[in-house]
């Protein structure tokens, strides 16, 4: 007959788990009070207004302005992600291959704009891109163009400024991933007679793909919710989903209409994360491990 003897190590482990839980509980409480409850309350308002109603969702799924906005938002996010990748990859690669001091300098330059307000940066782009802006005046001075180019108050201006703001979110995960690729592998490739471009294409690039996926997901998802750049630089025509949210508050004078849009966007983001997490651990995107 076997009597169950309590395993002391198991007991210890349980106590440790309890302690851990107690330690994180203040943080959990803050998240609960400041994020879960308000967001839950907003979501509740989207289906409850003097009784249950799906009116807000009916509108989102049947009126074509919502589809246009969601489609435009995805197009812009895709464009921003691709451009950020093309610009960010070489920067991260450079930061990874130069001596430590230089890489710190490069990364500081990447992160530096973080300390400037998004609003200020959007206005700076306005000063650069508008008809009487620096770029148009310079091009006219060089006689490259006779009429100013329409660089802003449209989707183009929105994309440019958004790429600028989101670029660090691409460079940092890329750099973190590249850092972990052992340099020996490249040397091994070279010693076996592969040209530098071949070692890059066959060894380095595939190994950096998790970073590419992490950076792209980060930039894409953040871009989906962008508000300031399309509002200031979109000329009124570039209506992204976040602007639809704010406009719905004004139009319908109740939060439900707006929160239905927000809930649909949130579900879209969660779906993206769910799909991406099949290929790469989410820790890697969010924690940049």
């Amino acid at each position, binding site marked *: 007959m076997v009597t169950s003897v309590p395993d002391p190590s198991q007991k210890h482990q349980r106590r440790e788990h309890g302690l851990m839980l107690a330690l994180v509980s203040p943080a959990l409480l803050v998240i609960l009070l400041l994020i879960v409850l308000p967001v839950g309350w907003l979501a509740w308002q989207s289906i409850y207004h003097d009784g249950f109603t799906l009116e807000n969702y009916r509108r989102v799924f049947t009126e074509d302005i919502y589809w246009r906005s969601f489609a435009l938002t995805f197009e812009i996010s895709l464009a921003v992600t691709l451009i950020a990748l093309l610009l960010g990859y070489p920067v991260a690669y450079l930061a990874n291959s130069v001596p430590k001091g230089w890489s710190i300098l490069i990364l500081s330059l990447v992160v530096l704009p973080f300390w400037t307000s998004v609003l200020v940066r959007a206005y700076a782009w306005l000063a650069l891109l508008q008809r009487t802006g620096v770029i148009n005046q310079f091009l006219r001075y060089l006689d490259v163009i006779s009429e100013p180019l329409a660089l802003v108050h449209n989707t183009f201006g929105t994309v440019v400024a958004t790429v600028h703001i989101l670029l660090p979110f691409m460079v940092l995960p890329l750099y973190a991933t590249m850092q972990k690729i052992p340099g020996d592998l490249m040397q091994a490739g070279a010693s076996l007679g592969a040209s530098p471009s071949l070692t890059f294409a066959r060894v380095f690039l595939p190994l950096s793909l998790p970073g590419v996926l992490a950076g792209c997901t980060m930039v894409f998802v953040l871009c989906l919710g962008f508000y300031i750049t399309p509002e200031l630089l979109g000329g009124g025509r570039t209506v992204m989903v976040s602007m639809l949210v704010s406009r719905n508050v004004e139009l319908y*004078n109740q939060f439900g209409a707006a929160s239905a849009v927000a809930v649909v966007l949130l579900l879209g983001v969660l779906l993206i994360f769910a799909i991406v997490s099949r290929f790469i651990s989410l820790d890697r995107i969010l924690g940049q491990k």
Partner: protein
Amino acid sequence: MTMKQNLGLGCALLGAIGLTTAADAAEQITFVSQGGAYQQAQTVAILDPSAKKLGITINQDSIPDAWPAIKTQVGSGKPIWDVVDTPTGYCLRGGEQGLIEKLDFSKIPNAAAMPEAYRSPYSVSYEFYSSVLAFSQKTFPKDAPNSWADFWDVKKFPGRRALRNHPIATLEAALMADGVAPDKLYPLDVDRAFKKLEEIKPNITVWWTSGAQSAQLLNDGEVDMEMAWNGRVSAVAKEGAKVTFTYNQGILQSTSLCILKGAPNLDTAVKFLNEAVDPVHQANLPLNIDYGPGNPKAFETSVIKPERAAQLPSEPANAAKQALMSYAWWSSPAGEAAEKRWASFMQK
């Protein structure tokens, strides 16, 4: 909707602190406006003199957009504000939804003496501004556009254009461009207005969303003509930009005073309302800021000099050239439908 600068939440918080520390005067009210230079101007011209004359304490609060606060305060059953200065449309909508007190004009003789179009059962006009046709004098040194029909005429007046990304006043301008007389606009022919807007849409460079943006567009020469609020254009002109505007076919808009339903100091609030639209106090407002008095009688006092009066949107001769906005129409179901239609117009 807020065209005035505002100090936002900070001011609202200060106001709330002011509330609790205010001396226990015999009578007091809490007055709410939109903050910034605009509220400061009122304090000098209207609020302080009114408080002195009535022997009451006026506690001030400010908020850029009063509507959500009105809803929650009255909804809670215990509002803390008494009198609110807010775009007239909100007073009317609030009145319909039982959030705003109906006014007894026998107790407000100063308002009763105002033209009927300047008040509603729930509100009294407090100050006027105008959505005007503004243009660059660099692009149009002479033969400048002078009507909405000119604004729509891209052949005769080539140049880049901006309109506000909002149906209010924009639909009115479209109808005037299509030949409707300024005093025959309401009820708006919404289909006709949107059809006319489709016509100009390809030529609109920017649909602006904030007053600051409209000023920047004009100041930087980003557009050659646009619809803008008169105070914004005159501010840019004062800074030295070669821009000006015409009151011809402007759309005269107002903010109004109204009293929250179940306001804690209802009787004093009514007394204040009467005092606030007193012609002399009202005449002092435009000496402090570029907005016109809500009470046209202010122009009959000798406080406003004729040169100054001629610059103001509600000066009788200027007002006669403009269309007076019907907030009653905009808060009607047809008006609300037109507002919703705007979103799909913009995205097509």
